């Protein structure tokens, strides 16, 4: 701990800034843990409270503002990319948007405490044309609450943390451990996700060329192409495969009543 504190004094602000910025940009970094450690450092008079607070809030606002403008200018493209990492990419965008809209703008205030929403809130705000000043105000309140909460936890539990950290010699070691833990958690999550959905691999896949060739053959009457993109992927001027029909992924039970059972169904999304 004696070696840790001078290192925290030298690099603490940069670490807090870097980790919080990365987390707000959507990377799996343990921002809350960084804040707890920073809070303990403040309690130990290694870091100053106000600069840590300002650094953390600035990092979060900067990352969120970047996400906001990316969402604003790329429309649903960024959300589609983020949703590819989710459990159900086909409905992720629509559900996120509707959930965000129903809960109202105040969702931004609590978003950082809710896994999943924290990544989507800023780009959703941009995509859904929230005014930037309003976004910034609400995001500032949310960031302030988030930072104060975790700094306070670290500040109040300084003794416990000091006992935990006494075996670490440098801040870089602490950072390495945090990064490794985050990566292990993320990798475990992805493996579990892969195993859970591995059963879906039983569905045959066809190349676009194969389908095109079949459509050009006499057998084309037994083909039904189905567009399963959620509405979120649609913009004015959007295109789809010629002759395809659309079914809404969120309303599958009703939609399949119209599907022909005597045809081969070819599904596609983006």
């Amino acid at each position, binding site marked *: 701990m004696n070696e840790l504190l001078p290192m925290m004094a030298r690099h603490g602000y940069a670490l807090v800034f870097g980790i919080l910025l990365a987390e707000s940009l959507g990377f799996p970094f343990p921002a809350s843990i960084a804040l707890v450690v920073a809070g303990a450092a403040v309690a130990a008079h290694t870091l100053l409270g106000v600069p840590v607070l300002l650094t953390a809030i600035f990092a979060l606002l900067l990352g969120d503002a970047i996400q906001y403008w990316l969402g604003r200018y790329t429309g649903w493209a960024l959300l589609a990319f983020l949703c590819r990492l989710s459990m159900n990419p*086909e409905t992720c965008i*629509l559900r996120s*948007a*509707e959930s*965000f*809209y129903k809960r109202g*703008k105040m969702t931004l205030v609590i978003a950082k405490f809710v896994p999943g929403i924290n990544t989507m809130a800023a780009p959703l*705000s941009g995509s*859904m*044309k*929230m*005014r930037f000043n309003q976004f910034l105000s609400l995001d500032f309140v949310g960031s302030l609450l988030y930072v104060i909460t975790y700094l306070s936890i670290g500040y109040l539990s300084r003794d416990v943390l000091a006992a935990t950290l006494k075996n670490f010699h440098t801040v870089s070691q602490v950072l390495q451990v945090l990064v490794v833990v985050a990566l292990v958690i993320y990798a475990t999550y992805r493996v579990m996700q892969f195993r859970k959905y591995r*059963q*879906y691999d*039983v*569905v*045959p*896949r*066809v*190349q*676009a*060329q194969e*389908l*095109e060739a079949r459509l050009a053959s006499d057998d084309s009457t037994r083909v039904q*192409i189905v567009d*399963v*993109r959620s*509405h*979120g992927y*649609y913009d*004015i*001027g*959007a*295109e*789809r*495969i*010629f*002759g395809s029909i*659309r079914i809404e*992924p969120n309303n*599958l039970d009703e939609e*399949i009543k119209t*599907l022909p*059972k005597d*045809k*081969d*169904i*070819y*599904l*596609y*999304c*983006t």
Partner: protein
Amino acid sequence: MAHLLREKGFNTFVIVGGLTAWRKVGGNLESVPKNDLVKLPSFS
């Protein structure tokens, strides 16, 4: 979704690469009908 349809008795396939792959091979396209363009919620 393809898996669910298969469970319900549909002979289902998935197009590898989706619309992007279809575009790349020069497959025929058409505009999405206006009725399918459902507006998403907006704060503006």
